């Protein structure tokens, strides 16, 4: 089941998107990608992925976070529930705390980012695969 999951990669670095697509496809995931942050929400709406891997440091600073908030603000349950993993090089420095894994797939707004996981940049492919497996396992059992 997990092997058929559809993953959306959002990163402005075309090469990184291609590299990660190769890795994820190699693992059996279905991969779609988007390199423009402003188009990400529309792409999510169109593709309805099972998981989003979102870069935070896009050309205009925190555009990646904006994408996350825009997604979560949509009324449909899908946008509320779709798990998001962010790619970041700043998770140890940001004053925002990342969503703690409460195991039930829910998130709380406020000081927590409504995301389910993060992977440091530069991306270690093995670590990304692990994180995707973990997040998908959590959301599917919920």
């Amino acid at each position, binding site marked *: 089941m997990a092997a058929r999951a559809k993953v959306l990669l959002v990163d402005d*670095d075309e*090469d*990184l998107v*291609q*590299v*990660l697509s*190769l*890795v994820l496809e*190699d693992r059996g995931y279905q991969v779609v990608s988007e390199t423009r942050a402003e188009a990400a929400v529309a792409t999510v709406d169109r593709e309805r992925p099972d998981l989003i891997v979102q870069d935070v*440091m896009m*050309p205009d600073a925190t555009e990646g976070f904006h994408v996350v908030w825009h997604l979560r603000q949509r009324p449909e349950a899908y946008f509320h529930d779709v798990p998001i993993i962010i790619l970041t*090089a700043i998770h140890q420095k940001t004053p925002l705390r990342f969503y703690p894994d409460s195991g039930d797939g829910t998130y709380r707004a406020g000081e927590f980012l409504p995301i389910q996981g993060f992977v440091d*940049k*530069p*991306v*270690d*492919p*093995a670590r990304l695969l692990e994180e995707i497996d973990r997040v998908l396992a959590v959301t599917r059992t919920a």
Partner: protein
Amino acid sequence: MPERPAVLPATQELIARIAWLGRLRSLAAAGVLVFVEVGRRTLGFQLDPRPIYALVVLLAGYNLAVALTYRAMRRRRHSGQSASGAGWQPAGPLARFLLPRLGPDMVYDREAGQAAVMAGSQIAADLLILAALLHFSGGVENPLRALFVLHLIISGILLSRSATYLFATLGVALYAAMVLGELYGVLPHYPLSAHWRPDAYLDPRLVGTHLFLFGVLLYVAAYLGSEIETRLRWRERYVVALARELAQKSDRAEAAYQELRTVERAQSEYMRKVAHELRGPLGTIRTALGVVLETPSAMPREKRLDLTRRAYRRSGELAQVTQELLTLARARSNSVAVMRSPLHPAAVAAPVIEELRPQAEKKEVALVVSTDAVPEILGDAEGLADLMSNLLSNAIRYTPSGGRVDFHLRQAEGGLVIEVADTGIGIRQEDLPRIYEEFYRSRAAREAVPDGTGLGMSIVRAVVERHHGTISVESAVGTGTRVTVTIPRG
């Protein structure tokens, strides 16, 4: 910038001393009363006490007036208002005569001036009253003439040397007028005591000796008083000047420190930008190579090759960025000697144009070059080549096929003019202010030409600034861009 007048400790001292003068005067008045009464009862004084009492009453009354004025002055001082109520004002000419001399760049304020005038008038009034008291209590017979010395010491402490000598002269004049007046019968004589040679005031030798010694005494007192005080003031001025110098130095140090902090902040910001810019491609390269190295050999060869090719291309991008960062650093820090080498602009332009011409031809962009016979200038040939190369390369890159790029060198009043005009995509007005920012690439630029470091215009501006030149960019979206650089002849 005019020197801010120093608030001298002397001003405060002067005002405080007025109260002190008043207290001394009260003591003196009481002393005179005691002296007269004790003298009448035990020493056989035969003087008429009425004029003396009248003078003591006068002294007390004027002392009270001084005390009241002084209190008003203090109140004004404490409520923070200046004497005139309209900011800082210098002391008047009379006060400047009375006050001890200051350094050339220091001025007394109006308040110190008023205190000095008060102190001076009191001393003058005291001398007059003292002379009158002496006159009514025996004239030359009265040994209390020594009290004049006290006033000269006080004047020496508070006032200028010239003022002190003036008061010494006044004292001598008053005394001389009194004793000579009595000697020659112009003034009546009021004997002090029948036992103390009642006819002494009529002895010219005795009067002359007294007058001479009195004069010597007063001038010596004036000399000693002002001499000691001059030394003290010299030291005080030195301390004040030192304090002010220290304050100025610490101000300068503070300003330099702030400037340094600003530079330091700009530097860290720049470092952060550079690191961020390098981190992106490096991360991608690392991830791509990591995949090639670690994925099972089941991955098709062509996919591995694709990953490796991407990593290779991105490392080329990194090499380009670091190359341009070095160019930028050099453009910003070239030595004065390098900046002032004689060069022929057309000769600098030629290889740049030849290097970029194939690029223009490949894109089918017409490259029109006109380098008028421009004279030699002083400047940095390498920097100017970087400048021309970046302007020309931008023009070619952002001009679609079929377009035209003009490269023009000419001589103008302001020096050498380098003009690069294209029929390219243009720059939006709101993007124009940002084009010199390191790594900045407008959205339109990124979309039209994916590759680019965003450092070209930073290099151009750095070269222009090092040459003290000017740069202007006119642009219209969809029509083209014209960059005009003027470099002074040096």
